[in-house]
């Protein structure tokens, strides 16, 4: 078991080092998130709706679109020069590679989501409610569930001729539960509703994340086999 | 699916609609009430079912024919 964790860690370390050196994915995702917030400001007419009332939905849409951009590129860099073949040749089980990728992607997307939440607070005077920890947990579990599915299907689309353009088609229908429960919980927390109202949602988000990781870990080897 | 089979399916649909047309007159404004006789929607729904199911069979038959034409060539 210890050896397994070390293998997962090796993949995480490799991916994060790569990102630290190139800063490609975090930079594009971060810039996207901030610029989308700027566009949202003009997309919402303040005489019709208060942007704070729909902030939860906007936040989750930003999370998903930025995440798709970033996670879709997971395998792009390694696809060049056949580097991914090297990763596959390493004496590591395939699910360890998958878990490593999920962890490193979760780190990247979490950074971007934290940035987005901060930017929303700055741009739209968004108050984070009376339960900031629950809010953070909701968003984090959402990110994990999203990344678990997106990493699996990122590997799928990386092997197709359509590439990342196919990712939303495969991913969006499956993300409906995440958006429903995630936006539901986030919206209520931002409106200072009692914690009891969102507890069920947070549990479901957690279960969704765990289930997606399990499914991905089982199926990943069938995606990258060849 | 080629243009000809599409055209054939479209003509079947049109024919069904043409049969349904005499009842169309009675169906005006019926979308607004629930007690009326919305024949138009009813016939359209059944036309869609028939066209889709027949279209599926026809398309399988055509594709099968294409493959079967190729098979003896390859065998020989």
């Amino acid at each position: 078991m210890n050896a397994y964790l070390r293998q997962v860690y090796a993949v995480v370390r490799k991916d994060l080092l790569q990102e630290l050196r190139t800063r490609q994915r975090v930079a594009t995702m971060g810039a996207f998130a901030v610029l989308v917030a700027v566009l949202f400001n003009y997309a919402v007419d303040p005489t019709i709706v208060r942007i704070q009332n729909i902030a939860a939905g906007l936040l989750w849409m930003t999370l998903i679109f930025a995440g798709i951009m970033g996670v879709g590129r997971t395998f792009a860099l390694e696809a060049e020069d056949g580097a991914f073949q090297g990763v596959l040749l390493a004496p590591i089980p395939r699910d360890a590679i998958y878990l490593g990728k999920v962890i490193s992607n979760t780190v990247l997307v979490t950074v971007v989501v934290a940035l987005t939440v901060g930017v929303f607070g700055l741009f739209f005077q968004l108050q984070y409610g009376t339960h900031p920890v629950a809010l953070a947990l909701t968003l984090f579990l959402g990110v994990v569930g999203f990344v678990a599915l997106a990493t699996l299907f990122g590997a799928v689309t990386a092997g197709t001729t359509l590439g990342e353009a196919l990712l939303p088609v495969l991913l969006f229908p499956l993300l409906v539960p995440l958006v429903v429960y995630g936006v539901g919980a986030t919206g209520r927390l931002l409106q200072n509703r009692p914690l009891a109202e969102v507890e069920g949602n947070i549990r479901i988000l957690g279960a969704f994340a765990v289930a997606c990781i399990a499914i991905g870990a089982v199926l990943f080897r069938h995606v990258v086999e060849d | 699916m080629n243009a000809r089979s599409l055209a054939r399916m479209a003509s079947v649909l049109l024919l069904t609609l043409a049969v349904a047309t005499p009842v169309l007159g009675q169906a005006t404004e019926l979308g607004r009430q629930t007690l009326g006789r919305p024949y138009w929607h009813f016939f359209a729904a059944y036309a869609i079912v028939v066209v889709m199911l027949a279209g599926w069979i026809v398309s399988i038959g055509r594709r099968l024919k294409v493959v079967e034409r190729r098979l003896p060539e390859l065998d020989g």
Partner: protein
Amino acid sequence: MASAVALLGASLLMVLLWMVFFWVPTEAVQGVIQRIFYVHVPAAWVSFMAFGIVALCGVMYLWLKDDRFDRLAVSAAEGGMVFTTIVLLTGPLWGKIAWGTYWTWEPRLTLTLLLWFIYLGYFMVRNATENPERGKRFAAVVGIVGALDIPLIHVSVLWFRSLHPQPVVLNAEGPALDADMGITIGMGVLAFTVFFFGVMMLRYQLECARARAELLEAR
């Protein structure tokens, strides 16, 4: 065999059409439009059953790497796409009369729309790989994950619905089912199921013939 089953299914469909047009009593509240029920519900049933077959065959294909399971899966998926399209086209036609609008976020209708898109993804992935064997594996993965996610999607859209009262004039189900209507809907489910399996087997034969042609071509 396959054409015999398909033919039986087609004749059962004819009987169903006769029952719907000439035999079954008209529903008292909704009137004629309620007769869409007899194709809408069986088509929905077949759509979801077909996706179950897609996922099961996907699991078997990934496990045993036997091409026959993939052929079954793609045959079922094509049928599923056909029947899902039927559900999505007949639903709004009924809804326009029963609810006063073509589209509502009715949970089952929403679920069917998402199912249609999952089927779409299944075929897009299949056809977008240079190596056909890889396309089969990818499609199996899409089918399995889709089938596992569908119950959760259903629960979530139901939950969402409970937050938003809809402008529903009538319950889609109508009052408790009359005996003759029960027989007709049973006939609908039977006819659609038999027809689906018959044509799915025809489609399977097509896939087998294609595989043979490819084998001969490679020689």
